């Protein structure tokens, strides 16, 4: 059964009239992992940042086209993100960045709750404790940090910091989680742990992961979209595309001939 949670229609994005991605049509399946892959500079980050309306924060950035998110309201099936308050969009679509970026002035505990703190949402102590424990458990960090919750997160390893950032995004209970090359700054062991975590998380959240690492896309994703020079070249089940790419560019990328 096909069950889309997020749809992109004719999406184009540009910086200073320099078109970065053009006319992209794509649907993301609920509780599946979709990898967006493609060589450096092809517009993967830009595409991802359109999805939670972060692209428009850059001065002179433009977007056109439609992005539709499954509505929480039973009457409409989808809501259009361009006409939704970006604050609400970003609460339903969380994001994890290329480099781990926990807030250095906050403790580990506060970092998990950062979304609530920033938005001025008051929580009871018990509620807050529960959210922290649940999400640190979800990213398999609880046992490692439970005795240091009141410390600042800066002593954590890169991989631990990135998992803390994932917990921070998940704590807002988003429907979709965007990950922008979340392991590109990490060592192989941390990378492995995060990949395992991502596969685990798909039960709770729909995941869209950008990667320029073919192996990673193959290991974690159910679907892949291959982007090249701002165009969506090919989209489909990961197994199908990896074994039988239709497009020559896709095949070249998969075999490491372009990167």
């Amino acid at each position, binding site marked *: 059964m096909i069950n889309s949670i997020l749809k992109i229609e004719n999406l184009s994005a540009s910086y200073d009239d320099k078109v970065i991605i053009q006319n992209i049509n794509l649907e993301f399946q609920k509780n599946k992992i979709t990898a967006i892959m493609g060589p450096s500079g092809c517009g993967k980050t830009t595409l991802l940042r359109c999805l939670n309306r972060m692209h428009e924060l850059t001065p002179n950035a433009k977007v056109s086209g439609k992005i539709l998110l499954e509505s929480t309201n039973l009457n409409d099936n989808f809501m259009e993100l361009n006409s939704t308050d970006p604050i609400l969009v*970003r609460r339903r679509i969380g994001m994890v960045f290329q480099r781990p970026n926990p*807030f250095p002035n906050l403790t580990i505990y506060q970092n998990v709750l950062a979304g609530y703190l*920033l938005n001025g949402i008051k929580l009871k102590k018990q509620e807050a404790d529960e959210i922290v424990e649940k999400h640190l458990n979800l990213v398999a960090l609880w046992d490692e940090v439970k005795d240091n919750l009141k410390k600042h997160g800066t002593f954590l390893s890169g991989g631990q910091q990135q998992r803390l950032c994932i917990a921070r995004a998940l704590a807002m209970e988003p429907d979709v989680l965007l990950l922008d090359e979340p392991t590109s700054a990490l060592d192989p062991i941390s990378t492995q742990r995060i990949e395992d975590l991502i596969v685990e998380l798909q039960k709770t959240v729909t995941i869209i992961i950008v990667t320029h690492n073919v192996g990673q896309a193959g290991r974690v994703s159910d679907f892949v979209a291959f982007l090249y020079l701002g165009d969506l070249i090919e989209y489909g089940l990961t197994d199908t595309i990896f074994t039988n790419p239709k497009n020559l560019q896709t095949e070249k990328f998969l075999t490491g001939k372009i990167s």
Partner: protein
Amino acid sequence: MKLKLLNDKVFKNILIITTSIVLLIGVAFFITLILESTSSISKFGFKFFTSTDWDPVFEKFGALPFIVGTLLTSFLSLLIAFPFTFAIMVVLGEYFTKGFISEVLRYLTELISSIPSVVIGLWGLFFLVPAVRFFQITFGLQPYGVGIFTASLLLAFMIIPYAASIAKDAMRLVPKDLKEAAYSLGATRWEVIKQVMIPYSRSGIVAGILLALGRALGETMTVTMVIGNSHFIPKNLFSPGNTIASVIANEFTEATGDLYLSSLIYLALVLFLITALINLLGKYILKKIQINH
């Protein structure tokens, strides 16, 4: 090879010598202050800090009114400067980091800080003093015009560019990563400024405030011109008063007796100590609020 080593040695020695000279001058400066004020110190001792008499005719000298005046004007000016500094910091540090408006504002603030203090003093005398007097008449206060409040207003105007320029630099140094993390969690721009940028740059902001305070404590010319030069403890914020720096500037040339002169130098020593103390306190605060513990 040998020549290179020799060069290295020579260079190192030059560095050591020049550094020592500067240090020596600093020490000599302090020693001179103490030596020259010895007769006043031995006569008045710690009572100098608590006595309110400043009477050159009867050779009675006490610094309290000037200490009070100095601290009052400095901190009041800081208080007045704060909202403006904050606004400039946010506008230049986040909203307009480049482009026309940023340049114009930056140019204006730099312009203010380059006006000679005597010119600011004159402007204060001819514009601010009558304005304050008008205000005092309207509200039924003693129409001095000059006084602690006027001096603080003028000082505030002078220190805003200093504090704002450092604070805004600190704001601009906040990593883009952190701002984006906050936006991605649904924060508004104001929430990002308040919860991410200001906490992250607070040591820079405090440094800016300290620099401004240092400037306010030592500023002489402007203050002397509009503070009213009264030797009494100010009754309220609109009363005339005096600061340590302005008493020294005013009376040094006419100080006839040895004890008078020695007391003025004692005053200088007190100002030096106040400044040093505030600096130490600032260092302590800065250390306390450093990001990584």
